[in-house]
C-alpha cells in the first residue's frame, strides 16, 4: 500500500488534473476528508485570523503529529491511495514524517498563470495580487526545497505542461515511484484557458519581482519533464516579450470593437434623438388633432341642424 500526497500551488487548477487523471486509477485515502480537515485545522490554528491566501509554510506543533500518523496509517489497504489538498503544501515535512513511505506529487505553475487565474476569478486589486505572488513564492520555495531534499519521494510537475499531455501522468508516476496508476484515455482537461490579455497583464505585474523568475527557472530545472515545452526554460522577460504581439493584436481587436461600439452608440443616440423628435412631433400633432377635434365637436354642437343630423345617426 502506498499513499500519494498530492498538492499544488493555489489558482493553478491542479486539483482538476488530480480528479481527471489520478481519480480514475487510484483510490481516495479512506480518511481523505479527516486528513483535509486536520490539515486545515492545523493551518487555521497557526495563522489565526489570516485568510487562506495569507497562509505561509510553517512547522506544525508536535501535538498534531500523532493524530496525523494515525490517520495516515488507517489508509492501509490494497493498491495506491491518494490524498489531495492544497494546504498540505504548507507543511510537507510534517506529512512526510507522518508516514515516511508517503510519496509526494507537487504541482506548480508559472507565476503569471497563477496570477492570471486570480485576476480572472476576482476583481483586480494590486494588494491582493501582491499577496498571490507572495503565496506563489512561498509554495514554490517550499516545493523546491522539499523536492531537492527528498528526490526519490517527490515529483515536481508543471501543471501547464501536464495540461498539454495529461495521459503521460500515469507513466510518470510509474517510472518515478514504481506505483501503478491506470492511465485514463487521453482527453482535453476542462480547466479554463487564459486570455492573452490576462497573461500579459499578469506577466507585466511580475516583471519587477525578481524573486519569482529565479525560483521558477529552478523549479522547472528540478521538475520532471512531461512535455517538450518543459525543456525550454525561457525567462520571464522573454515570455513577456513573446506575448506582446498577441496581446497587441487582442488589444487592437478590442479597440476596434470599442470604436465600433462607440459608432453604434452614436448612431443609437442619433436614432434616439430622431425618435424623441418624432415623438415630440407626434405629440404636437396629437395635441393639434385633439384640439381640432374639440373645435370640430363644439362646432357640431353649436350648429342646430348638424346636431339633429348627428342625433338621428345615433338613433339609427
Amino acid at each position, binding site marked *: 500500500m502506498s499513499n500519494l500526497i498530492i498538492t499544488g500551488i493555489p489558482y493553478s487548477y491542479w486539483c482538476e488534473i488530480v480528479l481527471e487523471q489520478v481519480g480514475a486509477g487510484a483510490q481516495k485515502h479512506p480518511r481523505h476528508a479527516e486528513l483535509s480537515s486536520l490539515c486545515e485545522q492545523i493551518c487555521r490554528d497557526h495563522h489565526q485570523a489570516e485568510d487562506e491566501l495569507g497562509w505561509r509554510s510553517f512547522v506544525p506543533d508536535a501535538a498534531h503529529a500523532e493524530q496525523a500518523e494515525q490517520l495516515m496509517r488507517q489508509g492501509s489497504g490494497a493498491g495506491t491511495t491518494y490524498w489531495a489538498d492544497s494546504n498540505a503544501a504548507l507543511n510537507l515535512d510534517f506529512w512526510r514524517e507522518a508516514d515516511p513511505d508517503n510519496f509526494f506529487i507537487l504541482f506548480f505553475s508559472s507565476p503569471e498563470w497563477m496570477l492570471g487565474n486570480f485576476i480572472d476569478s476576482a476583481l483586480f486589486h494590486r494588494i491582493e495580487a501582491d499577496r498571490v505572488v507572495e503565496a506563489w513564492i512561498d509554495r514554490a520555495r517550499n516545493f523546491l526545497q522539499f523536492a*531537492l531534499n527528498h528526490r526519490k519521494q517527490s515529483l515536481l510537475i508543471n501543471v501547464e505542461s501536464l495540461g498539454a499531455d495529461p495521459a503521460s501522468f500515469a507513466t510518470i508516476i510509474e517510472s518515478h515511484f514504481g506505483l501503478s496508476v491506470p492511465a485514463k484515455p487521453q482527453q482535453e482537461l476542462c480547466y479554463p484557458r487564459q486570455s492573452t490579455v490576462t497573461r500579459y497583464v499578469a506577466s507585466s505585474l511580475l516583471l519587477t519581482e*525578481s*524573486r519569482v523568475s*529565479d525560483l521558477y527557472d529552478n523549479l522547472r530545472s*528540478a521538475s520532471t*519533464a512531461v512535455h517538450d515545452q518543459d*525543456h525550454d526554460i525561457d*525567462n520571464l522577460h522573454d515570455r513577456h516579450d513573446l506575448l506582446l504581439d498577441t496581446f497587441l493584436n487582442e488589444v487592437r481587436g478590442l479597440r476596434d470593437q470599442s470604436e465600433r461600439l462607440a459608432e453604434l452608440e452614436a448612431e443609437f443616440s442619433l436614432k434616439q434623438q430622431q425618435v424623441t423628435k418624432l415623438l415630440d412631433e407626434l405629440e404636437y400633432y396629437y395635441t393639434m388633432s385633439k384640439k381640432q377635434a374639440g373645435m370640430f365637436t363644439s362646432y357640431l354642437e353649436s350648429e342646430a341642424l348638424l346636431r339633429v343630423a348627428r342625433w338621428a345617426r345615433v338613433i339609427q
Partner: protein
Amino acid sequence: MRIPGTDLLTSEEPDVMVYLGTRLVHDFSVFRSGNLEKTIFVEPDPVRAANIRREFEDTPGVAVLETAIACEPGRGILNIANNRRFSSLLPPTGLLEFYPNTRVTESIEVETQTLETLCSILAIDWQKNNLLIIDVGGMEKEILAHASMAALQNFRWIVIRSSDLDLYGPASVKAGQNMMDTLRHAAFTVFTWRENTPPFIQIVCIKNDFQIENEELQGNLKELGRQIEQLEARSEEQKKMIRQSEELLRANAGLEVRLESLTKQKTNLESKVQSLETSLSKKSVEVEEMQRAVRINNKLMLKSNTDYKDLQSQYRKALEHQDRQHVLLCELKEKLAEAAKFYGRLNLEDAVLESGSLDHERSERGSIPDGAESSDH
C-alpha cells in the same frame, strides 16, 4: 536563493567587488545600495553579460567583463544550459540528479582568463578591501586549486558557491580538497555552510592578516632553522673528514712497512719465477720430443692397427675358406658315401647281374657286337 556574499556588502563595506559568474544575480538593487568604489561582473555568457550591462549602464563604477575564468588563458567552450544559471565551461553531470530537466542547448567558444591575469587586467590593489565572489559552475575547484597565493591574497574576502558533490565533470572531489587546502594555505579562514536546497554550499573565506604575518615569521624561522641545520651538518661532516684523514695517515704508515716486505717477497718470487721459467723451457723441449715420439708411436700404432685389421680380414677369409672346404669335404664325404653305397649296390647288382648276365650273355652273346659292350662301361 541568496546571492552569495551580499551580506558582506552591507556588513563589511568592501571597496571593490569582483563577481565571477552572475548566475544568481537577479536582484540588482543589492549592488546599488552598497558603498562600492568599483564593481566588476565577469560573465562569459553573452546574453547574461548584456543583461547586466543594460541593467547598470547608468551606474558609475560598474564594469562587465565578458570572459570566463579558467586554469589557463586562451579560449574555452561554454556549455549554455536551458536554464542559463547552470551554464558552465564543464558539462553538467551530478547536477542532473538534482535538476533532471537541465539540458545543454548550445556550446559557444569564449575567451578565458586565469585569476592571476584577471587581477592584473583589473589592476586589483591588494591593499584595499576587495571582495571576490565565485559562482562558476564547478570550475571553482580547478581555478582555486591552481591559483597562486599572490592572486588570492589580493582579496580580503572570497565567497564561493560550490558543492561537495561532483555536479560538473570532470572536476573531482580531490580538486575540491585541493581548493580548500589552497585557500587555507593562502591564509584564509574558511567557513562553509549549506544552502537550504541541496546540492550547493557556500564557502566564505576571510583573509587572516595575523596568520599571514605569523606564517611569514614561521617561514623565516623555518629558514633560519634550516640554515642552522645545514651549518651543523656541514661542521659534522668536516669533523668526520678530519677523523678520517687521521685514520688514513695511521693506516698509511702500516701500509708502507707492509709494502717493503711485499717488495722483498716480490723480488724472491721474481727469482723463483725466473728459475721456473728456465726449467719450464727445458721441460717444454722434452715435451716436444715426447710429443714427437708419441706421434711416431701413433703412426706405428696406426700401421699395426691396419696390419691387424688386414690380418683379421685374411683370417676371416681363411676361416671362410676353411668353412667352405669343410662344407665341400662334407659334401664330398656324402657323395663318397653315396658313391660307396652305390658302389656297394652296384657290386651286389653286379654280382646278380653278373650271374644273370652270364646266362644272358651266354644266351645273347652271339647277337651282341663286341664294340657295344665296351661302350657301356
